[in-house]
């Protein structure tokens, strides 16, 4: 049974892009497109989710993701409650499902869940009552579907189509839930060449089975690309034995203007943020003309509005 879809094929929860049908992904992107102008009107709101209560359940810190979910929910006229659980009752030892049950008793309609543990959002989705939807806002190394979707939205806005693209995902794929979601979405949408580029120690074993080409040499990996997606190198990885130093990493896998010149002249540069300038990306590139990193943030609001609107509508039908 597919937990994400209703029996008649509508979106029920958004937990992963793995196995999400192409038609649903396209519908999310199309719906997001029509939400794009809401942020520019006199009243930056539509009344779709009026009277709905959305709980941002963040068991792991996040600024951008939580804020864009909050803005998206508010632009849909929902009531939003932010819970930073690391500093709340979880520290008092309350089990995760007790927290969820308590919030459900407050008549929650939707949970946006961020958790360091892979599978946390699935776990909650299995547990909740039928009228409650769950959106995975990042679980461990597993998935970050709304980030993957906003990246697809960004690519479609700048490149128009997917069927003729070469896309490189560069950096710490091993620890990246964003990369997994991107790979699933890119292959589902029919991108013919998805590349992952990084040192052996930061690429998962068997990643080829996800339908990607593997490059350990960044110059070769970037050559001819239409889209270059840089991943954040998490500082804590540097402390282990996987990497010698930030300087050394930048030398081989940092995106500089010289390396970017190997991609197509009209290639776009993306990053899910937060960036480590001078580690995985040079400031000249991050702030340069090919960077679409800030538009990604803006698009993230419209994409999250689309996901929440599709989940909330017709839920009782």
């Amino acid at each position: 049974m597919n937990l994400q879809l209703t029996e008649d094929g509508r979106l029920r929860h958004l937990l992963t892009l793995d196995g999400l049908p192409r038609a649903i992904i396209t519908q999310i992107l199309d719906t997001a497109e029509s939400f794009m102008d809401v942020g520019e009107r006199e009243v930056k709101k539509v009344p779709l989710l009026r009277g709905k209560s959305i709980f941002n359940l963040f068991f792991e810190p996040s600024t951008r993701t939580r804020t864009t979910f909050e803005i998206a929910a508010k632009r849909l006229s929902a009531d939003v409650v932010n819970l930073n659980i690391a500093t709340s009752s979880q520290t008092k030892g309350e089990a995760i499902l007790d927290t969820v049950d308590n919030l459900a008793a407050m008549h929650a309609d939707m949970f946006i869940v961020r958790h360091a543990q892979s599978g946390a959002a699935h776990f909650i989705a299995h547990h909740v009552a039928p009228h409650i939807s769950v959106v995975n806002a990042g679980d461990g190394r597993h998935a970050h579907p709304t980030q993957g979707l906003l990246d697809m939205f960004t690519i479609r806005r700048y490149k128009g189509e997917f069927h003729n693209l070469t896309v490189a995902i560069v950096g710490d794929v091993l620890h990246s839930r964003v990369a997994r979601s991107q790979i699933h979405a890119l292959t589902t949408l029919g991108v013919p060449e998805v590349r992952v580029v990084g040192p052996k120690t930061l690429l998962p074993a068997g990643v080829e089975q996800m339908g990607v080409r593997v490059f350990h040499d960044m110059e070769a990996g970037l050559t001819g690309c239409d889209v270059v997606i840089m991943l954040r190198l998490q500082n804590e990885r540097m402390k282990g034995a996987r990497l010698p130093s930030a300087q050394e990493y930048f030398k081989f896998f940092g995106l500089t203007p010289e390396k970017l010149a190997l991609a197509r002249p009209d290639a776009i540069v993306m990053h899910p943020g937060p960036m480590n300038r001078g580690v995985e990306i040079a400031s000249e590139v991050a702030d340069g003309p090919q960077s679409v990193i800030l538009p990604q943030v803006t698009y993230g609001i419209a994409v999250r509005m689309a996901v929440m609107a599709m989940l909330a509508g017709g839920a009782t039908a």
Partner: protein
Amino acid sequence: MHASLPDANTLIARLADAIAPTLSPDTLIVGIHTGGVWVAERLHALLHCTKPLGTLDISFYRDDFSRIGLHPQVKPSNLPFALEGRDILLVDDVLHTGRTVRAAMNELFDYGRPASIRLAVLVDRGGHELPIRPDFAGLTIAVPDHQNINLSRLDDGHLTLTLA
């Protein structure tokens, strides 16, 4: 095909004739997706309106959203002008319950505060559920609840009314 349904293009011409004397040069014409936009395009041309044509998709304002969900093909609304203090001519193809028009007015007010809104419809078929009546109607006809009037557009742009 209902034998007594008049030709849509004749009705639009009749509608334009009725609207023309009341139209100021500053009136903005706004069509409601999808059929209302087709009618609005014709009226915009027939009335020699110099202001751009506005379009509304009221999917985000529907009152049955929580029951039936989002229409899979939402089109962006496009109002290429400021509404503040302007006279609006709102155009739809068929007036039935009035709920679409209510949603459209709610959406218009989220863009600004117009001075006035008037409603022009190709067909007023009755069955109103809200205190909404057209200022201009090409045809007023009582259609039973179980039947629907539809406006369709052929590839050559020809508009046809059908009763089913």
